[in-house]
């Protein structure tokens, strides 16, 4: 004990020498400017106009596959607005799939707190968690969440990541701890950053915005939004939806649930999904009901909604739809098409499709192929399309299935009114 104390004091002194005041050990500790009660909500946003806070928990939980199968997962849930005293109980068994979508703006300082709520179903596990902001530019390891070169957060404690957002685009995020396992288990979500052009308008500045082209999502008279700082409005859109491709191997999840050796080499995904659901659940505009344990007929996770994200897209003829596509499958590349609708790719890898000197490399296509860790910004112009229901689906046709159910999988609807 004496040795431990001495070493702890040594660490404390070194931390002080580096100017780091240590937090209380083993406690939920949310850091957010102007937030007096640590609920990750800024008390007076006018005092911190460029700060953005969020509080996630990492833990386990359950979801329901489109064929009705109960699936054990690891995942994140949103604790923003929850007081620290309640964070552990609210975060336990609360895993969502996909993880809560993180929507940000260029120019913000983003304070992301992650509390490790532990594994309620697997008390034998003591896994740390991280958030990897996938694609963050000029990243430093301390906030990259890649645990081999950085740090992970242990159960019952909180780490706050800091991101100064200087690049817009479609990113993604996931836990990088024991990446193959934690990602197959579902710790995956969408993340995107709106461009500053939304607030400046085309050619304007924050001090002197061009009001006629400021994005409608920022209260302006322009289009709903832009994907990038294009300077010419060529990435404008009217409707936006992040769609994250992914897939689960039920044998892996069941092995985790039943405390068996995990089949890494045999891993084969059989539940292809968009935003955490297979068709036809993808087109359900509402949250899916809390998962039910078929053995007991009761809620598997204390009645928590774990699949709130729909993939149904609705637009009015003539509107431009922005599909923020990403893939976080740990096994497969997927190709998707929007049958009958034109697709224009204006960005990949959270970067506008322009060369180093600004040369335009946008391209028109009818399919986009993404491997794990890839993202694309696709604008679908419905100008020439007749009203009706169109489908966005994978052209890897064997993945239009929900395990043994042969009609479903990676497909959703684009409804044009």
């Amino acid at each position: 004990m004496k040795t431990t104390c001495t070493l702890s004091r040594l660490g404390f002194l070194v931390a002080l020498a580096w100017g780091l005041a240590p937090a209380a050990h083993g406690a939920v500790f949310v850091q957010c400017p102007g937030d007096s009660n640590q609920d990750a909500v800024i008390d007076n946003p006018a005092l911190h106009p460029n700060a953005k806070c969020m509080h996630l928990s990492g833990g386990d939980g359950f979801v329901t596959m489109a064929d009705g199968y109960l699936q054990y997962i690891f995942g994140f849930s949103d604790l923003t607005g929850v007081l620290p005293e309640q964070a552990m109980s609210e975060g336990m068994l609360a895993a969502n799939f996909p993880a809560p979508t993180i929507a940000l703006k260029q120019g913000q300082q983003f304070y992301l707190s992650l509390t490790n709520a532990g594994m309620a179903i697997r008390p034998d596990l003591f896994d740390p968690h991280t958030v990897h902001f996938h694609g963050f530019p000029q990243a430093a390891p301390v906030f990259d969440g890649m645990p081999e070169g950085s740090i992970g957060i242990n159960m019952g404690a909180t780490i706050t990541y800091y991101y100064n957002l200087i690049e817009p685009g479609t990113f993604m995020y996931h836990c990088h701890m024991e990446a193959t396992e934690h990602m197959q288990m579902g710790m995956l979500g969408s993340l995107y950053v709106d461009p500053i052009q939304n607030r400046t308008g085309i050619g304007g500045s924050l001090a002197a915005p061009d009001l006629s082209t400021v994005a409608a999502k920022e209260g302006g008279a322009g289009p709903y939004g832009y994907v990038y700082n294009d300077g010419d409005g060529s990435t404008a859109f009217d409707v936006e939806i992040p769609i994250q491709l992914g897939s689960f191997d039920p044998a892996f999840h069941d092995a985790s649930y039943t405390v068996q050796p995990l089949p890494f080499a045999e891993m084969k995904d059989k539940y292809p999904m968009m935003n955490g659901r297979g068709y036809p659940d993808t087109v359900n505009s509402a949250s899916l009901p809390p998962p039910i344990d078929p053995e007991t007929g009761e809620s598997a996770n204390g009645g928590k909604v774990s699949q709130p994200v729909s993939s149904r897209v609705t637009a009015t003829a003539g509107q431009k739809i922005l599909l923020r596509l990403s893939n976080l499958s740990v096994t497969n590349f997927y190709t998707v098409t929007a049958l009958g609708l034109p697709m224009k790719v204006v960005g990949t890898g959270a970067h506008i499709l322009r060369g180093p000197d600004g040369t335009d490399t946008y391209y028109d296509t009818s399919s986009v192929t993404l491997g794990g860790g890839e993202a694309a910004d696709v604008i679908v112009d419905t100008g020439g399309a007749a009203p009706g229901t169109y489908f966005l689906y994978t052209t890897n046709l064997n993945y239009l299935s929900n395990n043994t159910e042969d009609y479903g999988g990676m497909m959703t609807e684009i409804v044009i009114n």
Partner: protein
Amino acid sequence: MTKTLLRLGHALVAALALGAGGASAVVDGITGPVFNLTARADYITAGDGASLLAWGYAPDDAHPGHFQDVMQYPGPTMIVNEGDEVIVNLKNALPMPVSMVFPGQSGVTTSCDSATGGTPGALTCEAPPDGTTTVTYTFTASHPGTYLYHSGTRPDLQVEMGLVGAIVVRPAGFDEGTNRTAYGDAGSAYDHEYLFLLTEMDFQVHEQVAINLMAGLPPETGVNTADFTSEYWFINGRAAPDTMMAAGAGTPWMPTQPYNAMPRMFPGERLLMRVIGGGRDLHPFHHHGNNSWTIARDGRLLESVPGSGNPDLAVSDFTVKVVPGNTYDAIFEWTGKGLGWDIYGTVALNPHTCTADTSGFDVVTREWCADHDKPLPVVLPNQQDLAFGGFWSGSPYLGAAGALPPGQGGLNANAGYFHMWHSHAEKEITNNDIFPGGMMTMVIIEPRVEGVTIP
């Protein structure tokens, strides 16, 4: 993870001290333009310690950093100059015919054309399994860039067995000391270059071939090449954590896998990634740290005006979609621009200055000056609440080592920034059911301090 990587410790530190086992400023390889190779069989080591029977091209001659007459996986990287007439002489000590094809090279002639050696095969001239016949392939390296070569005889089986390698064609005017470019233009200029030849293996094929040979059967007997399922994934012929071991003689227990994949750079430098899809599968190669610009594919600059030397059609991305048979040249840079805090700590913690050039960067101290002296905006958790990576220095600051609990860290000799570069199909960062491993390595962004050099 920590336990698995701990055995890296000494080898990695040795690798850094030795400059990656004698590696020079350029990718490891052998220079031509005449190459004498023999296809041979031997064993390679997977990341979990398994031994796999493999076939590879062995250099017949002595080359620095290589083992003469020892089969290697991948085959020797052949480094030639634009305009060279390249001559490859191949002999075959394997139990079946073998050959070489050179995708992306035109006008390849062979000794079959002149009836001076070898047997015409389906794709190219083949060397019979006699150990003595020499087959010769000749072509002019007409375009600079990154290419691959592999067996053109039963490539479905023989590339799986290991008969694949890389070719680097230097542009006219290239100079290792004063003019490092991939294509002769400013857009492809770089400070350091590294190869990432991505392949995979199904160990059951290798076991089947070994069993066949012991039984006196033709090696391909009963091998179903349509039904491959990989369990091992490699960068430059090694599976993590071996990717981070020293190259060549620096890791003497891996003579058949002499190449490592240990990219290093200082902030503000340009790192050329030469990425090759050398196997059967697509791999999304995700490089943590920053986007890269893919400036060339298949040995051709992405330029709207051919021959302009301006890669204006380059694509920025955080993941390179590596397709089998394709090659990619990408420029990776890292400055720490815009992080919002000083990567070297505040001046009070660590006295240092920053003098910006026209871009806002200090090329001496390697700092982005707009963030100079800004404190880290958050407090890090206590040690008791953290799990530590082996490559974590104990400090968020570049070049600063912090206190770590006993047994933690220790693999970061210079307190650099380690970023993982890996297949983002995470199934592929395992070694036959064991995590971590496979198609994974780290880049090290090193602090610019005395004693830290990168060749």
